[in-house]
């Protein structure tokens, strides 16, 4: 039983599914933020974690990192790198969410949408983030690049 669970958790097919999920989410989130940099900057500002001088820099550059990571995971190019960045990003987001949940700030998540009228952060967002973090770790260690550009080239 234990080996079966281990085999399932380390399955490359599971990695493929996770890559599809994470890749699409990153692509979607990144594009939504590129379209509305001001909205995203306001979300970051509301978290009250970054110094003022870095808010816009993050709002301008972070979405592109999300798009590139999304592309890497979806296409299967450098998935270890994509998954490593994804893991780092989800860890940072988890930290930011936790700090502001403890502070009790009533702010929009700014995760997949830049709308200030989106839902306020809650434990649900943290759980969602941690689930995605686990998926990234699985891809980081077990992905065998099924259905990937890297594989196509090797054939």
């Amino acid at each position, binding site marked *: 039983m234990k080996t079966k669970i281990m085999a399932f958790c380390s399955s490359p097919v599971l990695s493929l599914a996770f890559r599809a999920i994470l890749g699409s989410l990153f692509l979607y989130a990144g594009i939504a933020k590129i379209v509305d940099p001001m909205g995203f900057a306001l979300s970051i500002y509301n978290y009250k974690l970054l110094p003022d001088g870095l808010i816009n820099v993050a709002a301008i*550059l972070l979405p592109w990192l999300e798009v590139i990571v999304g592309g890497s995971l979806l296409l299967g190019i450098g998935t270890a*790198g994509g998954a490593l960045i994804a893991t780092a990003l989800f860890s940072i987001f988890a930290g930011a969410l936790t700090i502001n949940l403890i502070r009790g700030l009533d702010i929009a998540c700014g995760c997949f949408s830049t709308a*200030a009228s989106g839902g306020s952060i809650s434990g649900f967002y943290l759980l969602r983030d941690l689930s995605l973090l686990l998926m990234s770790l699985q891809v980081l260690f077990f992905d065998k690049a099924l259905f990937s550009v890297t594989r196509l080239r090797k054939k």
Partner: protein
Amino acid sequence: MLKQKVFQERLKAGVKQAALLVIISLALGISFQAVRSDKIPWVGSWATLSTATLSLQSVTDISLSEAFALYRDHRALFLDARDPWSFEEGHLAGAVHIEPQDAGKQTAEIQKRAGGRQIVAYCDGAECHLGVDLAKALEKQGISSVKVFINGWSRWREAGYPVEKGKP
């Protein structure tokens, strides 16, 4: 033991690939920033925004129940300071759309519409400063005692009070 080695290899490859992905993202982000027309500056003026948002200064805010009482008794003109698209999707019934930067041009019109009633500006979200900005802009134009209904749209809608849709 073998597995550990495989993981280490994968992590090593990951670090290299990640560095490359970061460089590509930076290059794309910086290039796009250079060409886009609706860009935001690299460094924003967040310090001034926070003081405007956090201290209402001369502007007074009203509670949800005060806002509703004014609405019920037809004693107020509500001004929606959000963007036109949000206004179109839904706003307080009878509210007029006006953004802070347009306050100067439409002062006479607003005064006419208000007809001596209380003027209340609102926005959406506790951090939204547009309502405060609008109230201040109107005060500069000589319309005094404009009140602000902070986070007005969300609170009004959640209370189930009358709303309507439509273009500004």
